[in-house]
């Protein structure tokens, strides 16, 4: 299977690998996937309370190259967006950006799930209700 140059670049030089302090009220953490399934993604956002803007995003991913690249792209896109805007990121945008082959679409779904989980974690920490998302199907 030939991967796109963009995907390979994100795999080789991933952006925003790291860890934010999850005990901070301004940090939202999403941990999705399972080791048994071969992919686990942890995505974190730091939100500016005053503006609702995501000032930083970090990830760590256990998984294949597509999963790593999807997380890298997701964190890049999150920075500078408001939480509201972040909710509009669709997994198909990642598929398109990285030209993911059909068997790797689940990696983009995982990234979208990780974004949503991080946002919900942030919301709950700040006294807001968690948003109920629709299932994106099996990944």
């Amino acid at each position, binding site marked *: 299977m030939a991967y796109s140059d963009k995907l*390979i670049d994100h795999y080789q030089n991933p952006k925003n690998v790291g860890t934010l302090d999850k005990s901070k009220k301004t940090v939202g953490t999403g*941990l999705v*996937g399972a080791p048994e*399934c071969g992919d686990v993604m942890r995505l974190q956002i730091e939100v500016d309370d005053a503006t609702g803007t995501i000032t930083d995003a970090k990830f760590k*991913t*256990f998984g294949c190259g597509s999963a790593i690249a999807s997380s890298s792209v997701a964190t890049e896109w999150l920075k500078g967006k408001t939480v509201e805007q972040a909710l509009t990121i669709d997994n198909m945008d990642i598929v398109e950006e990285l030209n993911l082959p059909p*068997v790797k679409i689940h990696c983009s779904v995982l990234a979208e799930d990780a974004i949503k989980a991080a946002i919900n974690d942030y919301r709950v920490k700040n006294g807001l209700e968690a948003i109920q998302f629709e299932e994106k199907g099996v990944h």
Partner: protein
Amino acid sequence: MLNLPIYLDHNATTPCDPRVVEAMLPYFSSHYGNAASRNHPFGWAAEEAVDYAREQVAKLIGADPKEIIFTSGATESDNLAIKGVFDMYASKGNHIITVVTEHKAVLDTCKHIEKVGGEVTYMPVDGEGLIDLAALEAAITPKTILIAIMYANNETGVVMPVKEISAIARKHGVLFFTDATQAVGKIPVDVNKDGIDLMAISAHKMYGPKGVGALYVRRKNPRVKVTAQMDGGGHERGMRSGTLNVTGIVGFGKACEIAMQEMESEAIRLSKLRDKLESALMQLEEAYVNGSREHRLPHTTNISFKYVEGEGLMMGFNKNIALSSGSACTSASLEPSYVLKALGLGDDLAHSSLRFGLGKFTTEEQIDYTIKAVSETVTKLREMSPLWEMFKEGIDLNSIEWAHH
């Protein structure tokens, strides 16, 4: 000098030895006769070449040339052996014993047997990938006609106790079939010393061409017969119809002859290189060898690097190093290797495995390069693995409620 890319997937297939290619060439366009054409020199030349190759193959495994049935490869041989025995010995019984770590060509054939009224026992393996011989003997019933157990495993390289298995089969008057695809040409295999009644071999796993293989069928003590699974001209003593792949068979024969001469020294050289690779990679934290290290092919090692995923790992160096992983992130099922799981590995460790298969053209420089590339990539990916971070913080991963999908 370092040659890139490095091929370390010799359990999947091997390159043709140049001497094999050379032997084959005349049979494409000069000696192109049909080995079954009995009335002209073209046919005679082809038949002579096939007979010679049959001797070369037989010699490597200590068989009589008449006991070699040429096929299209090991998958066909597996099918012919199992289905052929099931049909031929239907009056004797309908029970077959096999092992959960067999190749799919054996397991799926056994599944077919179950659909057509046969009974199959699938023996488990222990953590080393080996079977319990007492349990094997206990599984034999008056209806048992065949024990089908591979010589060496394609994923782990684990070599089964073939002599002990055949002794049990003999004692109970049950036939013993072994898929020896990974073993023949790599380690000494002798159908008489090993007590084998039927055996599948493939040319392309031993520096021969793809698309050709053989089924060894014992002719004496006992005389074994299989029912043909393909109808036609009655080639190969009626057991396998179809015009013989003369060119491929010539190459197969030559590959066997070369293996006979070079196998022993190659096994010593490759096991040294394999051990060097293995011990260097085992210097990494949380690295585990899968399967028995004692009963194993000389050129294979299967290692799990915990907390990194195999396919992601391979992407770090697959431009320069070709190998394979027990992870199956690309397959529809996403299920990791059933062989590794049968050894008791959790899905996570099975997802983290790499199989290294060294071969004839593998050099020490290539092994040194591989050690460096794999070690660096494992370290780099662990830096970005949330599981590694949790492990380092002392968090028990089993205590986390994962969102299974």
